[in-house]
């Protein structure tokens, strides 16, 4: 018997029992809706988290520090820095020297709010972190301007209303222990925009001075942080290993790879996603049991019909296929509808959720990233998940349809014909 005829007969049988078929299919619809909905919503959620983290973390920048958090910090020699510059996969390199025991004073002798004073090459750093070193006032000094300072936004304020320093003012740098006999006058070249919290640190409390100035203050030419911008984010770990390898003792440096952290978060989100999906899958299994139940009843009701089919020459396999075709059609239709409703519901949810989070966010007063943008979860249409869910629907239906279908196929024709 041809498959197309078997399917059309199965379809006829299903139409005959419209209400029953619809209710059975509804179970599959709910299961697939849950799976697809969670998959697309979860994927959208994951992407949003990833985006947010990318904004905050500057994933493409590796942070190289001497020593480790536990062994204490050391210093980098200039030749070590130049070796890092030659590492393959590094697009640009910016070394920093953060000065210990340093105070900044304005023209009135009041200390500025700068927590960290770092010697840098302004242009190098501005190129690497253009968004972080965006001047609010003034401009980033060029390489030649030595006696200048760039201040983070909050370094210039005592509180919201009291401003300590303006562009063009002079700032005194006091270095070393009291009575601060090593000092230096620098001119404020730029005040930076608020950059907010970030993966590296909060530059709002930083002050940047030329690297040469730090060398002269310290009387040594050393650095203690090297920022490495990688040309391909995905190769972060690789570049990190290359950086370690240029040092005589790779154990003497720590390379922080933000991507590795990201990946870990990604893995966690993945596990959560799979967990949610497996819960959703349970509803599909329940639907499968519903199919088994209904088909078993259906086989009993149609016992005589099965007997007739067998008497006029239908093979057991044909009867089996006929019932499996019904189960398959339920899976197919339920899967298709479930896919549509799944995506529909996930868009609805995403919209509602985004609004909810947005209203919560605006009511809080706290440090946010530069622009506390509206959190937007966009459900992701994933072809893989769609195909998997669809196949899963059909497989579940066929598997649960197998028992009643086999029961039908095994019916003894003589008994089946006698069945009233």
């Amino acid at each position: 018997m041809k498959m197309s005829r078997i399917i059309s007969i199965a379809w006829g049988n299903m139409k005959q029992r419209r209400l029953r078929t619809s209710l059975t299919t509804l179970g599959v619809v709910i299961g697939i809706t849950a799976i697809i909905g969670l998959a697309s919503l979860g994927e959208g959620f994951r992407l949003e988290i990833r985006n947010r983290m990318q904004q905050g973390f500057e994933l493409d920048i590796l942070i190289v520090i001497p020593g480790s958090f536990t062994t204490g910090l050391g210093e980098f020699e200039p030749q070590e820095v130049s070796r890092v510059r030659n590492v393959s996969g590094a697009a640009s390199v910016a070394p920093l020297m953060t000065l210990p025991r340093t105070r900044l004073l304005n023209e009135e002798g009041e200390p500025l709010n700068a927590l960290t004073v770092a010697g840098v090459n302004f242009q190098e750093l501005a190129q690497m972190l253009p968004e972080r070193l965006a001047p609010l006032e003034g401009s980033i000094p060029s390489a030649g301007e030595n006696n200048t300072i760039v201040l983070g936004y909050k370094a210039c304020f005592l509180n919201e209303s009291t401003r300590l320093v303006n562009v063009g003012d002079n700032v005194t740098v006091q270095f070393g222990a009291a009575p601060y006999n090593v000092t230096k006058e620098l001119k404020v070249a730029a005040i930076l925009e608020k950059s907010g919290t970030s993966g590296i640190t909060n530059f709002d409390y930083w002050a940047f001075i030329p690297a040469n100035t730090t060398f002269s203050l310290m009387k040594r030419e050393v650095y203690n942080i090297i920022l490495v911008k990688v040309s391909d984010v995905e190769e972060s770990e690789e570049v990190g290993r290359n950086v370690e390898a240029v040092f005589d003792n790779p154990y003497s440096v720590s390379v922080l790879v933000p991507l590795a952290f990201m990946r870990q978060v990604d893995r966690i989100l993945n596990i959560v996603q799979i967990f949610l999906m497996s819960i959703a899958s349970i509803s599909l299994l329940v639907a499968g049991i519903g199919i088994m139940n209904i088909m078993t009843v259906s086989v009993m009701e149609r016992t005589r019909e099965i007997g007739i089919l067998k008497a006029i020459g239908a093979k057991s396999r044909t009867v089996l296929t006929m019932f499996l075709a019904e189960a398959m059609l339920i899976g197919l239709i339920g899967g298709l509808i479930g896919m549509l409703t799944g995506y529909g519901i996930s868009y609805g949810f995403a919209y509602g959720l985004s609004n909810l989070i947005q209203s919560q966010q605006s009511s809080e007063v706290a440090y946010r990233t530069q622009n506390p943008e509206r959190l937007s979860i966009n459900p992701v249409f994933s072809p893989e998940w769609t195909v998997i869910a669809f196949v899963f629907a059909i497989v579940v239906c066929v598997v649960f349809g197998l028992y009643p279908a086999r029961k039908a196929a095994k019916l003894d024709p003589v008994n089946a014909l006698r069945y009233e």
Partner: protein
Amino acid sequence: MAKILEVREVQKSYQIGKIAVPALRGVSFDVKEGEFLAIFGPSGSGKSTLLHLMGGLDRPDTGEIIVDGDNLQKLSDDVLAELRLRKIGFVFQFFNLLPRLTALRNVELPLTIAGVPERQGLEKAASLLKLMGLEARMDHRPSELSGGEQQRVAMARALVNSPKIVLADEPTGNLDTKTGWEIVQLMQRLNKEKGQTFIIITHDPHIAETADRMIFLKDGLVEAVKEAPRRNA
């Protein structure tokens, strides 16, 4: 004439609870090709069991049944199904039409199972329904047909695959006498015109009398065989 069907020492019993109830206790006879045979007997004599065995719907406990040269004992279930499809047509007391399908689709069903293309199958089914005088009733469902009409649809279905043997189990048992006679006459006409072998089971002696030969079954044994004088003459 060649033998189309042989029944050899067939025994069959049914298990009812723990007791084995014998239905057939060693039955043997031959059926010639083109013969119109009546198997006659009271209820419980094993007639229906015998018919099921001859049609390959069931298997005997012992003995052999040979249909058109094939020993049914040696055939697998699938091959038996194939044999029922190609060589045997069944007509039942309760018609056994599929209620959801129209008369035409009911008749086409065996062709569908045989994989005959739909258009060709419907043509063949329609021509048989015409032969049965049902051209006006083709698109009716069984529930919209009278008993006699339903039985003629069932006959058309039995004949649509051009089987060598038609097995009829009390075909008139659920019809009034007049309609029953019409059905029997139709069968005899087809038997003469197409040369197909008909084996009908009946407990109506008048119908049994019209056959070429009558096998009288009682308590699972052949009690008598009676040749009709009309054909032999």
